[in-house]
């Protein structure tokens, strides 16, 4: 890890106003605002795999989309390879769009069923006006070969492929512009276990060959544990613990990370530990608790947790943690 990070996320927030146009005239904003991403900061280094985990609705996808400027942040800044892209207009953003791509969860929904594989994978090249037709076709063929699909696939349609093959098509489309940063949003979650491992192996191979940097969003802790170098744990729009994957998963410090890990079913009897069960559900997104947002479910909550939000502190082992038990 030398030089500057490829991606610097600083205090980024993204809110959703749930009121419709009319309601905006008479309803106060405070109770209808979802702080989907709330003051999040982290760095991602070149050729690194950075994981984001947390329960459904904690803001993982919103964070991924905001980082790529597919959605605009309400606060904070996003610096990509030294350039602040937070407020770049469409035009100025275009060259950066080429360098950042996304792969979504659903290999069934994210591919247009009426287009051939050649059209689908070649589309980003056309949109960005890269090369001529012949060159584009060569690039598409080469990309398909790279993701392990036969050249005969070019003229076929998505429904003629299995789930794992469709996800390979989606990966080929994301990589055809030779991006540097790829956001994988639950990219293997819909696949069968045997196929998940195939796609993970492919992603790792591509990373080695092309020097890719991944932002890997997943709710599957074991997958993240195997695949990511560093990981951020999110709760209600905030990162509560960030650090090296092996460290965080072996010695979690934040009570939420601990609870999350202890809930994962273990294959071997010898690995099973007594559970720290979380009580209750995620609080309503529009009315998060005051103080530390986790205090309503935290088995170790103290008085200060109910009133004062903890700051993100760095511990001696390099991890960052937002918890009054670990003031740094």
């Amino acid at each position, binding site marked *: 890890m030398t030089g500057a990070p490829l991606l610097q996320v600083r205090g980024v927030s993204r809110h959703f106003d749930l009121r419709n146009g009319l309601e905006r005239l008479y309803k106060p904003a405070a109770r209808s605002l979802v702080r989907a991403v709330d003051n999040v900061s982290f760095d991602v280094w070149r050729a690194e795999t950075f994981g984001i985990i947390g329960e459904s609705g904690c803001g993982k996808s919103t964070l991924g989309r905001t980082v790529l400027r597919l959605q605009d942040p309400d606060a904070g800044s996003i610096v990509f390879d030294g350039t602040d892209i937070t407020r770049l207009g469409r035009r100025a953003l275009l060259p950066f769009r080429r360098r950042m791509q996304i792969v979504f969860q659903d290999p069934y929904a994210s591919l247009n069923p009426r287009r051939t594989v050649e059209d689908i994978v070649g589309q980003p090249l056309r949109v960005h006006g890269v090369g001529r037709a012949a060159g584009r076709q060569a690039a598409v063929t080469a990309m398909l070969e790279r993701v392990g699909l036969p050249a005969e696939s070019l003229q076929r349609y998505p429904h003629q492929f299995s789930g794992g093959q469709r996800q390979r098509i989606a990966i080929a489309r994301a990589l055809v512009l030779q991006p540097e940063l790829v956001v994988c949003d639950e990219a293997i979650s819909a696949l069968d*276990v045997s196929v998940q491992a195939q796609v993970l*192996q492919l992603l790792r191979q591509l990373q080695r060959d092309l020097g890719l940097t991944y932002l890997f969003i997943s709710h599957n802790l074991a*997958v993240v544990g*195997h695949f990511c170098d560093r990981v951020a744990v999110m709760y209600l729009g905030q990162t509560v613990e960030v650090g090296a994957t092996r460290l965080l998963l072996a010695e979690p410090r934040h009570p939420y990370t601990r609870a*999350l890990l*202890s809930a994962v*079913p*273990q*294959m071997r009897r010898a690995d099973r530990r007594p559970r720290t069960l979380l009580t209750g559900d995620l609080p309503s997104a529009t009315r998060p608790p005051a103080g530390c947002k986790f205090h309503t479910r935290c088995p170790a909550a103290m008085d200060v947790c109910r009133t004062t939000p903890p700051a993100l502190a760095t511990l001696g082992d390099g991890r960052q943690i937002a918890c009054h038990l670990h003031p740094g």
Partner: protein
Amino acid sequence: MSAGRDGPILSVRGLRTEFPTTRGRVVAVDGIDLDVMPAECLGVVGESGSGKSVTFLSMLGMVRLPGRVSGEVRFDGRDLLGMGARELRELRGRELAITFQDAQMALNPSLSIGSQILETLAAHGPAGSRRLFGRDPGQVGRAIEMLTRVGIPAAAERLRDYPHQFSGGMRQRAMIAIALVCNPRLLIADEPTSALDVTVQAQVLDLIAKMRRELGMSVVLIAHDLGVVAEHCDRIAVMYAGQIVELGPAEAVIEAPRHPYTQGLIASAPWLSDLTRELRPMPGSVPNLIDMPEGCHFAPRCPFRSDACLRPVAMRTAADGRQVRCIRPEAVA
């Protein structure tokens, strides 16, 4: 007639389910034999499309035409496949409950959650109070207790909520509450937690385990997550392309799998407890079930396949009682 104390509560022999389709015949369930013992938890695992759901829907008369079900299914000695729809409905809900993969399928969108629980209690519950109108306060209390036990906060206030006012995870838990409210003897839970976060998954599975301990309920737990069945089940049946390929004690199947498919599945699954373990992907993917060849269904993906695998492969029982559908001598050694 009861099958007696020590007999299985559910006994299945030669269950077969076919669907004629325009592209050919789909044999979704291809000769299933299994027993579930009283108070036992049997896990059923296998990848998408292996026939887990159809197997159990077939037993309960829930496969629609043109699907065809044959074989023998006995619940506590009673023949389920020969039973009339009315009798089967009576049995379901009282002695035998099923929760579906998709909670939308089980919940009535136009009835409040509370009414749905009370309806089940009124139809099948104890005390013989079959009053549909005018709620029995004891039963309202029971409904609240059940919702609380599946982890719905402030259950009393949420009885009047409709399914759409619940989150996906809460709907799943409400369905489980409805299934458990009459203390069934057998619960068939089809992927009860696949759509839930691990934290909620742990709550729901712990509840099912508790009911099993307290009431001696038997459970069939269908899942695609090996960890889930490893933790919660006594025995595991591994399904592939409509057949059970391996059946044995949970710990033995997970820690020393004998069928090449089970071995491949475990080698490709990431373990949180061992992050340095190299994942070994299995080549290929699950076949589509149209006009499957006669021989071993797994042969095209199997590293050990030989010409002998082209002939039908029967389930074999090893000396220790483990069952494996594989011709290799070491599979049953």
